[in-house]
């Protein structure tokens, strides 16, 4: 497929440099270099082929800034890196936000952090940062924010007209799951527009990565997405293993799979509790936490923490599992299967719940590539997109599981998909435990100071919310030159304004609840 696409691209856009690269080494299939003039037509080309914009980031090479676009296809794996060089002084680039909706936010983000001005972008205002920022944070050389740019960034001033009014949901609001702020313009109970404001929990992970060694970054991924900490821990570790070519023993891979799936169940359980709580039923929350505590007990026994795990190491694990772990896991799998019945009786079948969830917050399948959605949200629309299947890591290619999908993409489908996913995770755990080989749990001869070869790599895992990708640019030192996190909640949340428009506020809150967003993950 890749060769064909490249040929077509060369035909469609004149004067473009495109070449295939080693997927094994870089994690993407082809690299395309564009100019300012041809970028929009390249984006249009990919949009025509139903590619989604997986990520858009910027790397500061001091002499020039490089915008990196990752396009991928939901049905067949074909990840293409498109780069565009822009000058470091007063950098400008054409916007593609009219083609890909998600580019709206990505471009705003780059404008804030690097100062790249996107021509034609409708709303280049602050998305993440506070107003007191003096320097562009992610530039390698200190670059002050010019005064006129500050005015531009500050221009988000919601003002009501007659008969409408603005409501701030958040940053402290019971249903925003942390500190998301959604500025909602309302007409009575109906929402005219909803505009998320991010950045209330921006913790500078990407900046931190540039300041510390690969090893020292280990505790951070768990804080990016805390309900699914192990999954992000795995994303970080596997990317660097791939970058440095470290072989991981099979036992470690199996244990990683088991613990990750347990963590996924814990994360989904947290969501299962929070979603009915958004609809007004609190008791399922407590039942879900009851089960979650069982998983935490199991994981605490081997990792030592309850929430922010830092368990995986480059080339293996922090420590090996023991028999109690296997015993407890088996017991848990059995218990969990029983509990699903209770959940069905209490929530899934409940007529009030069904009425609230069915037919609300419908996400159309032909829209998802514009937003780059992933995870249960995209699967609820009927698209069987799962990184565990398309790009198997750990031992997902050695266990048998299916991808549960929905049909319409409403809140009920998202609910059903997640419930089915929990059962699927139980199946994976069972199989992996049955197949668990003996052997070392850690690769030998992993240097304490990692110095990966020069180059870049994109690697993605399926976290409990969707495609979590890590893009690393290495310059042969022991700290990454640039580490970029592509997080699923970010692109999933981007669909919210479209889904909330014209609905009742109660439905919008149900939709927001069904997304399972984690704010620190969005803000990073």
């Amino acid at each position, binding site marked *: 497929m890749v060769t064909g696409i490249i040929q077509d691209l060369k035909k469609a856009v004149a004067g473009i440099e495109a070449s295939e690269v080693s997927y094994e080494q870089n994690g993407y299939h082809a690299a395309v270099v564009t100019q300012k003039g041809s970028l929009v037509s390249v984006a249009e080309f990919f949009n025509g082929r139903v590619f989604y914009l997986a990520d858009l980031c910027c790397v500061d090479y001091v002499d020039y800034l490089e915008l990196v676009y990752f396009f991928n296809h939901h049905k067949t794996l074909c990840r293409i890196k498109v780069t565009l060089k822009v000058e470091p002084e007063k950098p400008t680039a054409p916007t593609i936000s009219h083609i890909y909706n998600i580019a709206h936010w990505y471009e705003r983000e780059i404008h804030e952090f690097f100062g790249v001005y996107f021509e034609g972008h409708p709303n280049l205002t602050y998305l993440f940062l506070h107003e007191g920022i003096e320097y562009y944070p992610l530039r390698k050389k200190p670059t002050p924010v010019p005064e006129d740019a500050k005015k531009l960034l500050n221009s988000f001033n919601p003002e009501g007209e007659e008969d409408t009014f603005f409501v701030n949901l958040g940053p*402290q609001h019971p249903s925003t799951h942390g500190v998301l702020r959604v500025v909602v313009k309302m007409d009575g109970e109906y929402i005219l527009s909803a505009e998320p404001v991010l950045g209330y929990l921006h913790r500078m992970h990407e900046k931190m990565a540039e300041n510390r060694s690969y090893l020292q970054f280990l*505790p951070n991924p768990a804080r990016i997405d805390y309900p699914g900490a192990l999954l992000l821990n795995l994303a970080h570790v596997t990317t660097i293993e791939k970058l440095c070519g470290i072989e991981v023993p099979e036992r470690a891979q199996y244990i990683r799979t088991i613990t990750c799936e347990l963590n996924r169940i814990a994360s989904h359980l947290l969501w299962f509790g929070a979603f009915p709580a958004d609809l007004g039923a609190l008791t399922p929350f407590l039942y879900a936490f009851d089960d979650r505590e069982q998983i935490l007990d199991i994981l605490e026994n081997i990792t030592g923490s309850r929430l922010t795990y830092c368990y995986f190491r480059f080339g293996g694990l922090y420590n090996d599992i023991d028999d109690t772990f296997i015993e407890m896991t088996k017991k848990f799998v059995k218990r969990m299967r029983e509990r699903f019945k209770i959940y069905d009786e209490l929530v899934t079948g409940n007529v009030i719940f069904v009425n609230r969830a069915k037919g609300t917050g419908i996400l159309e399948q032909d829209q998802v590539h514009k937003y780059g959605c992933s995870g249960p949200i995209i699967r609820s629309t009927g698209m069987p997109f799962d990184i565990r299947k398309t790009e198997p890591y750990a031992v997902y290619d050695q266990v048998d599981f299916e991808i549960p999908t929905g049909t319409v993409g409403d809140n009920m489908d998202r609910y059903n998909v997640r419930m089915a996913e929990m059962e699927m995770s139980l199946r994976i755990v069972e199989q992996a435990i049955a197949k668990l080989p003996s052997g070392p749990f850690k690769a030998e001869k992993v240097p304490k100071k990692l110095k990966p070869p020069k180059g870049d790599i994109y690697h993605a895992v399926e976290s409990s919310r969707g495609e979590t990708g890590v893009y690393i640019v290495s310059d042969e030192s022991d700290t990454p030159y640039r580490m970029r996190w592509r997080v699923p909640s970010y692109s999933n949340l981007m669909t919210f304004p479209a889904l909330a428009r014209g609905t009742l506020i109660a439905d919008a809150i149900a939709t927001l609840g069904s997304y399972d967003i984690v704010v*620190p993950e969005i803000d990073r």
Partner: protein
Amino acid sequence: METQGPIIRFAVLDKVLDLARANSLWPVTFGLACCAIEMMCTSMARFDLARFGAEVFRPSPRQADLMMVTGTVTRKMAPSLVTLYEQMPSPKWVIAVGNCAISGGPFVFKGQYNIVEGVDKLIPVDVYVPGCPPRPEGLLEGLMKLEEKITGTRRFPKAEEKW
């Protein structure tokens, strides 16, 4: 001349009030980051914050007595957090839960541009519960420590120390 006792014993009243306040700490529903999950865990069936009468999470700060700052406070969040604190009617208390709230935790580094290094730079903090995140027991212990601070005595037995 022998001094007569006061007609109204404010000291006794104060004691009663302190006891009532210490045993009815309603937290505001306010979670920031990772530690918020542990705060939820604390109010769930396993640890049950309700035993101490502190499970009444009030979404409106006007009705709350206790603010648990559970997570990193960013500079963007800081004004909202201060507003929230000011909206609470006194007497009010603050527990800084987790390392981020205490000192910025692991997110402090040279050149950081976005976090407040400790919530006590913004609002007065009564009890500090370190950990990343602290276990729910730690949070309960923090609540008891706050009760101790309000009433002056510890009502509950000390859990056995572990090393």
